[in-house]
């Protein structure tokens, strides 16, 4: 894919965010993290398994009318560590940055350990420490390494 193609792809939205260099097949999980399922009326464009110079294949997610918060970017980093975030205003990319892995993620993932206090009816948000190769529940210690996106809390 040429730079011109990339530019065209990015410049197609007027205002919003383009999430590029997402590992192939993770685009729907990116939408899940952002809480986008179409019911809110957002305009979303997705490219899946697009050829990439740096990744074998990549996904691209473009969300019209929405700029990602830092919290959202932090969580995205767990499933899309190589992603670049492009903020677009008036068809121009005004900000472009890579994601950084946060130290912790709060209130986003649910703990798969059914004996964890975060799964009881208590007034507590989940908190996971981000490890080199996964995340760990701060309460029960459970480590998640595989398929982190499947633990995104959809409540």
């Amino acid at each position: 894919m040429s730079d011109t193609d990339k530019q065209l792809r990015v410049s197609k939205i007027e205002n919003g965010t383009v999430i590029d260099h997402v590992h192939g097949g993770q685009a729907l999980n990116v939408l899940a993290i952002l809480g986008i399922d179409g019911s809110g009326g957002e305009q979303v464009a997705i490219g899946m398994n697009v050829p990439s110079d740096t990744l074998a294949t990549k996904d691209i997610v473009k969300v019209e009318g929405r700029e990602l918060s830092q919290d959202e970017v932090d969580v995205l980093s767990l499933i899309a560590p190589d992603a670049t975030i492009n903020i677009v205003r008036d068809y121009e990319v005004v900000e472009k940055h890579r994601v950084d892995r946060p130290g912790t993620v709060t209130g986003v993932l649910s703990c798969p350990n059914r004996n964890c206090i975060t799964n009881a009816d208590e007034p507590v948000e989940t908190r996971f420490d981000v490890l080199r190769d996964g995340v760990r529940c701060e309460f029960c210690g459970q480590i998640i390494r595989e398929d982190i996106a499947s633990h995104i809390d959809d409540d």
Partner: protein
Amino acid sequence: MRHDHLLTANQLTREDIELVLDRAAEVDANPAAFGKRHAGTLLGLCFFEPSTRTKMSFEAAMKRLGGDVVDMGSVDSSSVKKGESLADTVRVVEGYADALVLRHPLMGAAKMASEFVDVPLVNAGDGAGHHPTQTLLDLYTIRENAGLDDLTIGIMGDLKYGRTVHSLATALTNFGASQHFVSPESLKLPRSVRYDLHEAGATVREHTDLEAVLPQLDVLYVTRIQRERFPDENEYHRIAGEYQIDAETLDAAKDDLTVMHPLPRVDEIAPEIDDTDHARYFEQAHNGVPVRMALLDMLLEGDS
């Protein structure tokens, strides 16, 4: 100690542990000197699970420090039965007591509860998670009998769900102990404990039978293989039988092997071992009082 709460063994440094054990030795040597140190102080006991030794030893410890306890009683007779959350319960009991002791069936309960209270909170067991005060009395017993340096210890039984094992194994990494874990395949150490051990630089040596490793051991720490973990009763009996020790088993052990068990035992240790020099499990249980006196003394005086 630098901590307001004692939640897991992970938070204890070697220095923390030695401070508590040294204070416990002072208590042991001269209990009368500690008899009025905390007169008028109240310890809140919140036990959401049955407990005999832990609860009684905390109660004894507080009373021997000159204080007293307020006990929420059994879950069936408390507001928990009415649906009160743990967060609310500890916030209420905090108003009655100067420190709290919590046992709860869910992992991470103590960690969560500690975020709702300002008084010191001690984890007295959270499901299959941690039991750090058991670890302190275990370490005290080990230090008295075998020393904590150059220690080779075997930890045998239910390593997956045994919270005493999780805390002990983690704490022992502070002392560079050589640890051997003996269990059925299905009850091996959980991933989270392995992670802590690896992070601390410890090597996890796992075995399915005791025979090969027994002659090397200074301490053998036995835990109960819990019948309720097995859907098949026959499978339980088959496995549990392989993790029982008797006098004949110990023929292959060092003469000064220390045998420990957090109790209660069922049939993991034959009664014939009770009268041998190996048996230290009742001494271990008794050490719960001076060790918990020391810990409470330090937490209540804000010994930072």
